[in-house]
């Protein structure tokens, strides 16, 4: 089960996925991120505090926006990941490409 909440704080859009992100619902995450980009968001923050698990399909969603966002000047940051989920990002090496912060403040100020 996955539910995604979006809220706007100043120029930042904060996305909070809740639950497990796997092959069956990664499309949902993909759509949320895309709709924000289409809305013209320049700063997208993902609140990872409620992500219980992320599969490779979920990682694929974040990965697929790397180049596009770079071209369009959109920043994507992730914060408050649980240690287990952070480990998944680290093993794959995505933490080298997507800025990951321990908490929201750090992400906003970076």
């Amino acid at each position, binding site marked *: 089960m996955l539910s995604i909440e979006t809220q706007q704080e100043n120029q930042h859009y904060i996305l909070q996925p809740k639950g497990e992100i796997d092959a069956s619902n990664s499309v949902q995450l993909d759509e949320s991120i895309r709709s924000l980009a289409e809305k013209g968001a320049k700063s997208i923050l993902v609140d990872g505090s409620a992500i219980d698990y992320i599969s490779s399909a979920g990682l694929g969603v974040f990965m697929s926006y790397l180049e596009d966002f770079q071209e369009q000047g959109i920043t994507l940051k992730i914060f408050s990941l649980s240690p*287990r989920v952070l480990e998944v990002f680290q093993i794959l090496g995505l933490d080298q490409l997507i800025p990951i912060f321990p908490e929201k403040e750090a992400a906003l100020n970076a």
Partner: protein
Amino acid sequence: MIKLPTIHIGRLSLLLSILVWLALLFVDLVRLFGVINNLNSGIVPEFTWVLEILFFLTVYSFYNYNLQKNAQNEFLNLLWRAASTGIFASAAFLVIQIFYEFLGDSKLGQEPFLRNFFYHVHFALISIFLVSTTLLWKKLILYQKTKQVVQQWKTYEIGLLIAMFFVFFSQDTFGYSFIFGFVILTVLGGFLSVNLKWIPYLTFKEKWKSLLFLAIIIVCSVYLFLQTNAYSSAQQTYPINLLDNLFLISLYVFILIYALFSFLVTLFNLPTSSVFEQKLTEAINFQRLSQSIQPDEDEEKVLDILMDSCMSASFADGAWLEMYQTDRNQTIIQTRWIEEKEKEELSQLIESNSVAQNWAKESKADLLNPLALKISHPKFGSLLLVPLVINKSVIGRMVLCKELKDGFNKEMVSIIETFARQASISVENHRLLNQAIQNERYQEELKIAQRVQKALLPNNLEHNQSFEICAYSNAADEVGGDYYDTFQLDQHRYALIIGDVSGKGTSAAFHMAQMKGVFQSLIQLNLSPKEFLIRSNAALSRCLERNHFITASIFIIDTLNHQVCHARAGHVPTLFYRSGNQNAEYLGIGGLGLGILRNMQYEKHVEEKEFTYHSGDILVLFTDGIVEAKNQKSQQFGFERIRALVEINHHLSPKEIQTKLIDTLHDFVGGDGLIDDDYSLLVVKFN
């Protein structure tokens, strides 16, 4: 031992009855001789009576056997047998009469012996007619029998049997006791005669035929009865009375009553027989509709039956049937007795009819009932719209047209509705069946894919005496995205590769095949692990979908120098057990998955490391399916369990270590818990 010939009851009773009849004739002729010559022949009348009863019984037995042998007698056939016997008996008697007319007062005409002979012939024919017809009636009466009717019939038969012996007690024909017996048997026969269940099953034509046969039977029996009376009044010529027998007279009456009843009931059933036939056709049509269509047949066959059944049930003058295709373009499948132009006109009338429009908008398709419409059209006066509903959605409609106004009554509509529902069920079953077959085919295809993919993994893992190796792989679905391989680079160097495509199932399997192709090509170039991954990334970036990536680890083992050089592309870390300090730990090395950065930037994110191995050291390569396998409490198997297991079991062979790991994993996940991802395991132990 002498083998007795099998007794043929039919022939035996026929033979016996002929013999008995001849004996009867002989006895009576001898008696007559005695009477004429005033001699006492010494033959008591009881002797004749016994023979008479024997004759009745043998004839009964013969016909009883004969009828049972031809078990599936049709009603008309039964009636015809009775009628033909009657005609034969009457004709024979007529011939005899004409013969006597012809002789007139000649000597031969007065000859008592000849007269007696014919008297016996007459007796035999009447007995045969009466007994055989009674048995035929029995068949008709006991059609769709109940226990009660069978009981009544048995009682009647016992009554008849007693009647045969009546003559022993009283020779006074039409005395009180005779009348008493006669009344009882007549009442019993009358009761039995109300069992006429066979009549409704005759078609209109058959009813007419049966009326004819029944009329013949009635005429014959009346004629024969009258002739019997004529004999009785001319008694003096015949020394013994065979015909004024309670048994025979009761049968006469019974046959007449039943024939009369049948005649009248059939006659009065004539007007309603068409309704009965109609209902029977409907039942048959219903049965045809409910028989499921064979998978290789077409739905049209069912729709064909549906149209025919509904038209015959409603006496419609024309009809058409439309099936909606998925793109909502109507395709007319069938039209009956209706011109294209008329159909167009009627369709427009339906379109403009507000009731029909509301009807078509009904949201709950399974509540949709046929709708009868009055229309103003030069040819047709009324229409019936019949929906075809499958799985709560309307898949089509049938329009029945009648020239009459208000041509569809409640009964028609309800039977048509039933037909339509049944046809819809048949079509639905047909579609489901086809779907199931299709699925079956996909399953087969997947099995082939599974076999092909299994072949992509190596059969033999290349190694030398310096190390032992074993591998295991399992896919969550039929096919998966895990890959491992070994290559011998030169005499002392071997490459090990493990890879994992993001996602699972068919798409992962295709990417896995691509990965194998890329790896197999690049390994030939004898590259360093880092260079190998950089080139792999460049190659795979061209063929992977945008949101897919591959993780991999590569190890190059130099058995001469006991060196291992390795690099990691985002793959789960490899466990390395050192026998020196009896300690296992994961090899920490930076790296990024293949296909994530699809440009030259990738180079910056990949590292290469080298280490020395010693005897007893163990390398455990695996994919994330093992680490992320969850138990019922949603806990992951995790890295730590693998590490601990390897430390404990380091002394075992690679195969045993692998088995330990897999078994522990399965125990952890739980009995019927499924591991929702592909998982693979490669264990290397250095000698």
